[in-house]
């Protein structure tokens, strides 16, 4: 849920990166963090285990520029992907303005992708949102791996709503900013639609 502050002339929005364990959600945020001008970003926080698996969330505040004199700030969050952290995932979805689903393209992770997508739908519903109505984009990550499933197959299984989708390799950054821009644009368009 966005926060419009007339006093500081800022609009703040929350974007959540969702997806199965080890699909590259944190890597997306790390790439954005490393490639963003220091003036436009805040500190990246990772609440992770000793083995660097996300325990609660990663957080990255980002400024994107101005619209009609209002600074637009996006707060990017990741959820822990591992199945047993479901309680934490629910908490992080609270007040979300837009969702990125990061899919792991590896053919053997298809089931994990589908399970995570179902979990996203259920957890959003618990918060009173419908996936069909939330600004939503899909990223097919790890396209560089030899065991990546064909794009058509991923699309058929994971993007029946035909939302904007992107091929990516988060370690090199391919597709990372395209995904972010698409979801941010969707969020702003949605706010515009709701204010009419």
């Amino acid at each position, binding site marked *: *849920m*966005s*926060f*419009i*502050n*007339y*006093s*500081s002339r800022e*609009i*703040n929005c*929350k974007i959540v990166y969702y997806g199965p364990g080890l699909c590259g959600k944190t890597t997306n945020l790390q790439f954005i963090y490393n490639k963003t001008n220091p003036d436009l970003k*805040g*500190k990246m*926080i990772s*609440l992770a285990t000793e083995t660097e698996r996300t325990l*609660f*969330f990663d*957080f990255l*505040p980002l400024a*994107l*520029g*101005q*619209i*009609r004199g*209002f600074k*637009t700030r996006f*707060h990017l969050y990741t959820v822990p992907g591992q199945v047993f952290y479901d*309680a*934490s995932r*629910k*908490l*992080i979805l*609270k*007040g979300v303005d837009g969702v990125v689903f990061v899919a792991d393209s590896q053919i053997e992770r298809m089931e994990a992708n589908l399970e995570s997508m179902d979990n996203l739908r259920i957890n959003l519903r618990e918060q*009173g*949102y419908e996936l069909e109505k939330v600004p939503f984009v899909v990223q097919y990550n790890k396209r560089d791996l030899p065991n990546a499933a064909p794009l058509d197959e991923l699309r058929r299984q994971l993007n029946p709503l035909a939302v904007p989708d992107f091929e990516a390799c988060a370690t090199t950054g391919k597709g990372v900013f395209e995904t972010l*821009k698409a979801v*941010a*644009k969707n969020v*702003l*368009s949605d*706010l*515009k639609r*709701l*204010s*009419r």
Partner: protein
Amino acid sequence: MMDTQLVMYEEDYKKILGIIQRLVRDANAKGVFVVDKNGQLVAEAGEVRGIDSTSLASLCAGSIAATSGLAKLIGEEDFPVHFHQGVKDNLHVTLVARRMILVVIFDDRSSLGLVRLRVKKGGAELARVFEEIQKKAEADSAAGGAGSPFAEITDDDIDNLFSD
């Protein structure tokens, strides 16, 4: 359906700032922050310059969300007051009006008892302001979002933001 969007006008901000500036003085606190439950910083007062307030807001919201989940597990609605004791500095965190988080940082110039007492009064004043904000937001929402700066933006405005 999504919750009502939080819209804060200049006059609301001034009221909030006035309350928390007074709380800093009355509680002998180092600093006071108001954060919304989604992790957005609303206002700050006191000696807060060296503190990364954006991170503080996000972590406080995460902490409140996690402890609220814990409360529900044991059959409580919420844990509305949290106290974190450090070697030099301490954090006193309270839920206000179910949607806002009031964070007070204090050291040995103050005491937990004093902070609790002053937070009770300041928190009640803040709750009244947030109720007004909520009523305004609901009225705006019923009027079709007239209070939103988005009512006037165009697709071009959004596209321009992303033109490198």
